[in-house]
């Protein structure tokens, strides 16, 4: 295996816009909101940024196919700006670009910024769009809930779980995230809900109801990264270090029955997780990880991903959920910021928003929702696509001594 990225790059500044229905904002004003926070946090000047990666998920309602809008909005010093599109995993992929640039020596200070302006579509949920002319002839023009609902049905069938039991475990995921989101001033949804409300909500895609689905939001988030040496030269202490950064992309195996994927898990997440733990030197994720931010686009995704990250045993994720293992006061809090479910899901920004929360928590700066026991290792998991064909991105960040 490659030598890896562990401890080669530090995060020196991060910013995140308030997520939500930002009717009065364009993509550029959302980016500026996140960027000004990050630049102030880093204590640098824009002119010090050598290169930038900009992530956006949906070109049609956004900014077009280049990095120019970011360069213009932030008035970057004619730096190289690369646009990253990798479905909902775009944010972590942009972070990967910036981190790799610094690790390679190609840039001293690099920026990753993600943005999505979704609330210009005119309807709820993600935009309906083409996936290319070949796919449009033979693929299913379904919805995101429909694609992930299949994960629930596949998982239920594989493990012989009663449909009502699984529905209740999924409801626990959402109730927990609403409780967390209520304590986050930047979150899109800040209302607490109870199990009954989830269970009785209208069905969106069987068996996913309204509250099994995350919010669709406008927002932006960004990270400024550099080498530990430069960070210290800038006066930074107690650095937040990148411990692992992995991306795994489907190659068609799941969809084409060449190996026996059974529809009950995310194949690429298992691959990315194994690689990330090896890169970070993590032997027992359930014992070593302190915080999880995962891609809870739907309640079932979060539940299944607990197993795919090897935190829960296969087939036992749903009981861990019901036992409160992932609650804010549980063993390993998951989505302590509210997650995609309540912080919101501006596609291109989400991966960076997850890292933002982990960064704040590691520094003890997460306000009302700060984990009391100081966390040292935090994982974020960012998933793009659908269960049968996707991109899984995992970023593990930690304190210098982790």
């Amino acid at each position, binding site marked *: 295996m490659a030598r890896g990225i562990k401890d080669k790059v530090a995060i020196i500044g991060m910013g995140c816009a308030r997520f939500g229905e930002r009717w009065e904002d364009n993509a550029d004003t959302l980016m500026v909101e996140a960027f000004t926070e990050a630049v102030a946090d880093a204590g640098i000047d824009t002119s010090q940024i050598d290169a930038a990666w900009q992530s956006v998920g949906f070109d049609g309602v956004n900014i077009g196919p280049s990095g120019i809008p970011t360069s213009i909005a932030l008035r970057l010093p004619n730096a190289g700006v690369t646009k990253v599109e990798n479905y909902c995993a775009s944010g972590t992929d942009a972070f990967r670009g910036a981190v790799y640039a610094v690790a390679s020596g190609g840039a001293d200070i690099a920026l990753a910024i993600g943005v999505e302006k979704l609330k210009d579509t005119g309807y709820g949920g993600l935009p309906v769009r083409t996936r290319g*002319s*070949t796919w449009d*002839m033979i693929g299913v023009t379904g919805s995101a809930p*429909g694609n992930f609902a299949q994960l629930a049905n*596949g998982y239920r*069938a594989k493990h012989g779980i009663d449909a009502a039991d699984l529905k209740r475990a999924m409801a626990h995921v959402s109730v927990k995230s609403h409780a967390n989101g209520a304590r986050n001033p930047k979150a899109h949804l800040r209302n607490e809900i109870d199990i009954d409300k989830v269970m009785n909500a209208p069905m969106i*895609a*069987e068996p996913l109801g309204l509250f099994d689905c995350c919010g669709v939001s406008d927002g932006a988030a960004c990270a400024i990264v550099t080498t530990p040496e430069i960070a210290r030269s800038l006066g930074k202490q107690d650095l937040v270090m990148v411990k692992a950064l992995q991306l795994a992309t489907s190659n068609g195996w799941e969809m084409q029955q*060449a190996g026996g994927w059974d529809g009950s898990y995310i194949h690429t997440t298992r691959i990315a997780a194994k690689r990330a733990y090896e890169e970070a030197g993590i032997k027992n994720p359930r014992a070593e990880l302190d915080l999880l931010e995962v891609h809870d686009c739907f309640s079932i995704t979060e539940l299944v991903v607990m197993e795919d990250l090897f935190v829960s045993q296969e087939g036992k994720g749903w009981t861990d959920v019901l036992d409160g293992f992932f609650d804010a006061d549980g063993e390993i809090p998951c989505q302590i910021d509210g997650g995609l479910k309540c912080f919101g899901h501006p596609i291109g920004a989400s991966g960076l928003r997850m890292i933002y929360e982990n960064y704040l928590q590691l520094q003890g700066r997460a306000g009302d929702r700060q984990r009391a026991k100081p966390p040292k290792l935090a994982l974020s998991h960012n998933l793009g696509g659908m*269960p049968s064909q996707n991109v899984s991105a995992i970023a593990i960040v930690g304190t210098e001594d982790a």
Partner: protein
Amino acid sequence: MAATGLLAHCLRDRLETIGELVSDIRGILSYGAYVPRRRLQRSAIHAANKWFAPALGAMAKGERAIANWDEDAITMGVEASRDCLDGYDRASLSGVTLASVSHSFADRLNAGIIKEALDLSDTIAADDRGGSLRAGTSALLSALQGSGSAHLIAAADLRKARAASDAEMLQGDASAAVLVGNGDDVIARLVASHSVTVDFVDHYREAGEEYDYAWEPRWIREIGHGGILTGAIRDCIDRSGLDAASIEHAIIPLTARGAAASVAKKSGLSPDALVDPLGATIGDCGTAHPLLMLTQTLDAAQPGEHVLVAGFGQGADVMIFQITAAINSVRRGRLEKQLARGIQDSNYMRFLAHRGVLDIEKGMRAELDEKQPSTSLYRNRKAVFALVGARCTKTGTVQFPASDIGVNPNDHSIGTQEPYPLAERSARVLSYTADSLAFSLDPACYYGTIDFEGGGRIAVEFAEVSAEDVDVGSQMRMVFRIKAYDSLRHFRKYFWKATPISQGDA
């Protein structure tokens, strides 16, 4: 019966016993039927419209077959053809015809799409027939009068009728297919035929128009059915040399109550010979109707029996067949199966919306641009129309769609794949959902991932599904359907969908 006719008749019967000559006999080799699953209750049509047209009450009995939003003459024609070709070597076909007065395309060969969906050879003749409700019988007669290898005749109609019209009550959507050819496995040989052409305008539809304009039923019954059709039937029976009363099965495709019986009586046919016109169960299926009634007869007929088939429209076609012993070796119960799979439906508003009679608000999610590049459709026609995937000659791995580099993780071999058709293979549901968010004209939109028997997996939409029909592990079969409409450029995209075997087994 004229003496010469009787002699010819006896001679033909004698000839049938001589092996070498039997193979020269042209006739019907096989047949198939397709009737959409939903059966709209006529009482529901009447209930919705009686405020305006109380007279519809006289017709408000029984049910009519209604196609789903994703069906048309082509897709229904494909289903009947698959039923007809079951067990037949498709490579032996030399021609395919689609007869319809509701062709999906005015200038694009509709039968050509059926040819692609059936994965027939490119070296095949194909044509569309239309212009009159007797296009189905005319196409059948042409094929019978032709020569050479087997010719597939499909007839299908999905006609649009105004709300509260008689046509809306009386019509039905369905298709039938007949395979014509030579050989000792001919199940019905042509004994006689007769055609007349008269510009009798009982109803018409100008090119490009949506709805028929129909004249008074009393006049049509007396002059059209009683005169033109009856005359043609009499003349054909005379040609055959048969005694009219001895004909065992008479297919007179008139669904109005008493209409067929009246023609039969005037023609000298036995009332017992009348084949059920299917008005109470399916409705008048236009060009498909005589052929659909023929499938009903072929399901039950015995060797030696005679079958008269009539088609009516600006004149008439009449054919008389004699059933051969080969009928005993074909699968029967084809129309019966189609009748049995029906489910009662009283949702008249959905029917109007599916027909485009009611302009429902489809919402922004329906605004997806469905533009179809002709170039990519042509390149991918085997995958799109015939559901042809690929099998690796090295590893045996089956996949859809085909690709240059194989999907098998143990051997990503390059250029080792051969075409592998999946359309006729059964499949099992791996995962599924009922999606209420995605746009569908028949919500909830069911779709999922299915595994084919023998390998291959596809994520695909489901057709004709309700909640109790599907679960992980359910057995499915593939059906050819409309995938999407491009309403901007007036194009329709076809692809395959999966349907539960218990419901969609044609």
